[in-house]
């Protein structure tokens, strides 16, 4: 019996949902939520197409999957055109950048190509991060930091779950029962994210943001040294 080493389903689903959550956390107007919904629907169609393909109906599966990919990417376009009516459409468009990452993550865990799967997930993650960073940079003076924090944590959870799906698939194949390990892993990541967000908020409320830029740079330098030390 041939073992199929494709990424595991549960973690893949977590990855896609967390990616959608990351974009949704940043969204502020209903048109953006609609765009996220369209992208998710596209990914769903893609998954259905892949399932049909694997059942042996290749002629039917490929077009369905292609439609899914198209709809997945179209979510971003639809969102952009819908938020065009607002004055702050530039900001709202920026908040949707992460939506471009959603289909990439989905293609990565499908996987459309086994060797490329990690790269595709990373590419999707990069878009999610870009969305968060853009939102933070442009809209950073908004009153509430929580969407930003949730967005970045959800992006990390999405990437982590995608990678977990891939490495579990690599090691155990797709016939093994793996969902407990997948749930415990992603659960751990999410809980840790929650804790770090809490810590961040405590720091925020301690009003370190009143510090001058030089001290922030110094802090950044210290963080850099810490990271280098961690990965040496």
């Amino acid at each position, binding site marked *: 019996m041939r073992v199929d080493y494709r990424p595991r389903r549960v973690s893949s689903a977590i990855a896609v949902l967390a990616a959608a959550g990351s974009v949704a956390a940043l969204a502020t107007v209903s048109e953006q939520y609609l765009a996220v919904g369209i992208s998710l629907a596209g990914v769903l169609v893609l998954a259905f197409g892949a399932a049909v393909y694997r059942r042996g109906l290749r002629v039917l599966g490929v077009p369905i999957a292609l439609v899914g990919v198209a709809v997945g990417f179209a979510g971003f376009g639809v969102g952009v055109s819908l938020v065009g009516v607002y004055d702050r459409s530039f900001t709202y468009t920026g908040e949707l950048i992460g939506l471009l990452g959603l289909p990439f993550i989905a293609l990565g865990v499908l996987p459309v190509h086994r060797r490329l799967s990690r790269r595709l997930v990373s590419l999707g993650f990069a878009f999610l991060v870009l969305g968060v960073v853009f939102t933070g*940079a442009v809209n950073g003076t908004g009153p509430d930091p929580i969407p930003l924090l949730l967005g970045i944590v959800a992006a990390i959870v999405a990437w982590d779950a995608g990678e977990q799906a891939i490495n579990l698939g690599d090691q155990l194949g797709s016939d093994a029962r793996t969902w407990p390990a997948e749930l415990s892993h992603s659960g751990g990541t999410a809980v840790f994210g929650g804790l*770090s967000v809490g810590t961040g908020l405590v720091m925020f409320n301690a009003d370190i943001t009143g510090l001058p830029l030089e001290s922030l740079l110094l802090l950044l330098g210290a963080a850099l040294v810490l990271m280098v030390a961690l990965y040496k």
Partner: protein
Amino acid sequence: MSNATADTTTKARATNTDAATDADAATDAEVETATSSSYGQRVSTDADGDDLVVEGERRRTGRWRGIVAVALFASAVGVLANTPFLLLATVPVAAYAAYPRLTGSPSATLAVERVIDDDTPDRGDDVEVTVRITNTGRWPLTDVRFVDGVPPMLAVREGSPRHATFLWPGTTTEFSYTVGAEYGRHQFDPVTALLRDVSGGTELEAEVDCDPATVLTCTDAVPEVPLRKQTRHSTGRLVTDDGGAGIEFHRTREYQKGDPMSRIDWKRYAKTGQLTTVEFREERAATIVLLVDARPSAYRASAEGEPHGLAYNLAGAEQLLTALGETRDYVGLAAIGREFCWLAAGVGLEHELTARELLATHPVLSTVPPDEDPTDPDEQAAELRKRLSGDAQVVLLSPLGDEYITSLALSLEASGHPVTVVSPDVTSDATVGSRLAGVDRENRISSLRQAEIPVVDWTVDEPLGTTIVNSTEVMD
């Protein structure tokens, strides 16, 4: 080597006890109680749990490495755009960079119990294997992956021998799968466990064995081992061209003083008055050394997931051993590979058991391919020649994966040890390379046959017994 052999004999029942450990009387007693409980049962204690779990490499997966770049990028943009919120958002990212350092690394606190629903199935039967794994430690194992050590000859038909789960201390996880029975005696390898901490930053590889080892025996059907006509001077089944005691008529000759009275041809004496002696063809026993090729080239397989050449070598050796065990032939065992392995020829049930033990457990015959290049095979071949007794013949089991093994067969034949080659065919037609390997193998077979070395070309879909019957018909 002789030490290890003696050790395995004394502990024939405690099948999987590490032959290298100096087991004192107490451990022996303990092993005995463990063995006498029902099949596959095992009561784990801290004292004896250690030798069943072998912790391997502990490595960092480095999967969180990229997060540092994200943190640096976000904080740089935050500083440049002078947005404190973005800097705040880098706090959780930086925390994730430290995450794999905070979660500690798991330890392999596991106990395995493996139950098979039928340990002596018929060929082709479905055998259900159930594996239960318990976390015996005090900490939960958040991400632990198991790959059961399915014997290479057994194909998994249903379910998966792989499993990943989360284990609280004291809890047990269970998974089962079905294998198709094949001829031979198949010992399950230890369960390979990969333990990751909750962040996935550290991965520990461990091998967890169960005690006693799980063995699936499927009685084999090699009707007769093809032997060359060289024998030792004790009665056996090989019909020789020498006259003497036996069943089949050989010749009559002139009476010599001391010939037994019962052999005198009395009718002839009555007719002619001449004393003649009737001779029968002598039936003698042979000394056979089964030589298993376990060098890296023997680990080739026809496709990924198929049993490799060594697995067939072992299965073949196993079946030949059984067939030879029913005769009075002296059987020895040798293997070349990582190191030289030798069991001197002998007869009897106990000797057969020792040989089977050796086949199942000797590190040279491990079904996992060697990592590094083996030691010089010439030394091992020299060692083999030194130990082969003058009248021994060699049955060489090899997929004939390279030129060396052909030259070894030829040189053994030349030095007076008749060689018979049993060669499982692990080549395929899938790629140009494998077709080339197939042609190479054909060439080796024909060069051996030109040197009048019989070769049993074993197409592995067929049982070895059928192949031997077919090829002996051709030889005759």
